[in-house]
């Protein structure tokens, strides 16, 4: 190796060193997104046979008729409904708990903290099985309501954690300032506490929605004959996967990305207007 070569080698090694984190991070990101790319590509496949695992030929057939498989869109709509209600319930209950935990000192705090932590620290299959036993013993009709109950239960803790982090980092003097400026307890909460805690609550709600929409294990145990979207996918994985499943998956992914991007752009623009 002559000096010129070794210098080039040296600078590229330096470059690699300096950008190691960026390269490794982007590789991880690629690993995370690879399946989504496959899902998207295969949504344009025209498979032979019942399984959609190998590429045959390009087709937009499935995109033109996403609900063409019986039960698919019904299960999707059911999943969205459950996710919506579960998000609402878990966010409400979880926010209340988070405020109580951050704002008040009371004797039962450690016990409450562990009751919040345990659902996150328990394998889903154990929770699912336990809940099923309870429902069976109560003679409950498995279906929409049992799924909703279960989803609120396991989303609750995640909302508490998200909201708690935000409320904890909030300067208590802001609420005192509001009180000092003639805002009673209710006004203080409405005008100061809630708006400042809003990003934490939104993050908790988003997480709850994602967890509920994507849940399979607990739902599978407690759904009875009701079929949510993940259960439909599971069923089809045993019998044969219609391309429409990929279409829905791609559409959900793109919609989620676009929704968040749009809200970010709007937020940015509003900030710039104020500036």
């Amino acid at each position, binding site marked *: 190796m002559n000096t010129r070569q070794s210098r080039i080698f040296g600078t590229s090694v330096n470059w690699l060193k300096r950008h190691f984190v960026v390269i490794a991070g982007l590789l991880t990101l690629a690993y995370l997104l690879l399946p989504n790319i496959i899902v998207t590509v295969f949504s344009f496949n025209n498979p032979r046979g019942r399984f959609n695992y190998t590429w045959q030929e390009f087709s937009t057939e499935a995109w033109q008729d996403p609900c063409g498989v019986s039960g698919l869109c019904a299960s999707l709509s059911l999943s969205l409904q459950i996710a919506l209600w579960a998000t609402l319930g878990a966010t409400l209950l979880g926010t209340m708990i988070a405020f109580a935990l951050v704002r008040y000192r009371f004797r039962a705090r450690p016990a409450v903290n562990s009751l919040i932590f345990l659902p996150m620290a*328990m394998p889903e299959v154990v929770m699912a099985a336990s809940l099923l036993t309870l429902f069976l013993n109560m003679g409950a009709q498995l279906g929409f309501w049992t799924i909703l109950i279960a989803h609120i239960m396991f989303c609750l803790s995640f909302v508490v954690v998200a909201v708690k982090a935000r409320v904890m980092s909030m300067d208590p003097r802001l609420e005192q300032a509001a009180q000092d400026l003639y805002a009673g307890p209710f006004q203080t909460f409405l005008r100061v506490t809630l708006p400042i805690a809003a990003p934490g609550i939104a993050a908790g709600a988003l997480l709850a929605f994602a967890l509920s929409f994507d849940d399979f294990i607990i739902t599978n145990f407690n759904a009875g004959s009701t079929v949510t979207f993940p259960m439909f996918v599971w069923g089809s994985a045993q019998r044969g996967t219609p391309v429409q499943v990929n279409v829905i998956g791609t559409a959900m992914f793109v919609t989620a990305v676009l929704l968040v991007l749009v809200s970010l752009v709007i937020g940015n623009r509003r900030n710039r207007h104020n500036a």
Partner: protein
Amino acid sequence: MATLTQAPPPVAPPVPEKRPPRRRGRWTPYLLLLPGLLWLFVFFALPVIYQASTSVQTGSLEEGYKVTWHFATYWDALSDYWPQFVRSVLYAASATVLCLLLGYPLAYLIAFRAGRWRNLIMILVIAPFFTSFLIRTLAWKTILADGGPVVDVLNTLHVLDVTAWLGWTAGDRVLATPLAVVCGLTYNFLPFMILPLYTSLERIDPRLHEAANDLYARPSTTFRRVTFPLSMPGVVSGTLLTFIPASGDYINSDLLGSTDTRMVGNVIQSQFLRILDYPTAAALSFILMAAILFIVTLYIRKSGTEDLV
């Protein structure tokens, strides 16, 4: 005070008692907690307690079950299914380590190096949640398919010979081997590692890096002595949020593995939903729970982070 255009706000008449209970809040925390905790108690704690009693019952579906303190169920379950237990812990631990190794650079990238791309990368980490994880796991079937490009490359590089020798893969297949299951587990729980890591990294003041550099620390030393220790809360909660669900998972083993990669989750699921042997399923659940609690407590003690929630 001549310039005042407005009188001060009306003031309530003085309260006669000397020490009024201004902090009316004595019961407020309990009122706030009540609905949520009641929910958790009825739909989480009670079922788990009930599960505990199921595990020591005997009987049959037709005749009903009775609590007979039949602890032998635990022993039988353990002796029948110990390979699945061992496998669960091994797979989950491997996936957790891989998640940490893969997730840390990405979390670091988002926290310190992403600049205006931060939000976009963040969205890309979370958005796959909205494509059902089952669909995404099925995509791994395509990626790792026999004779597919990934397997071909690994074959050409003789990587598969090494992994086969280690027992991670079998022949020239990746699918239906432990490697595929661990790969799927890693993929599925990676966001649960990245998010807490990012949260704790983001809290680190970037000036600390400058201070460390100023005090003669090379970038690698800065990372070892400053950044990594400060991100420990994220590392701890990330590993827990990865290890715990991974050890109870049965989806990845079912979709990407074979009968030789069955984990405890698979056994519990089939005992509950197919074989309908409730006491054995309950006992298995409790053994798994106890094992996890044991490992988690040990881990938390070791890492010195008590307040996880």
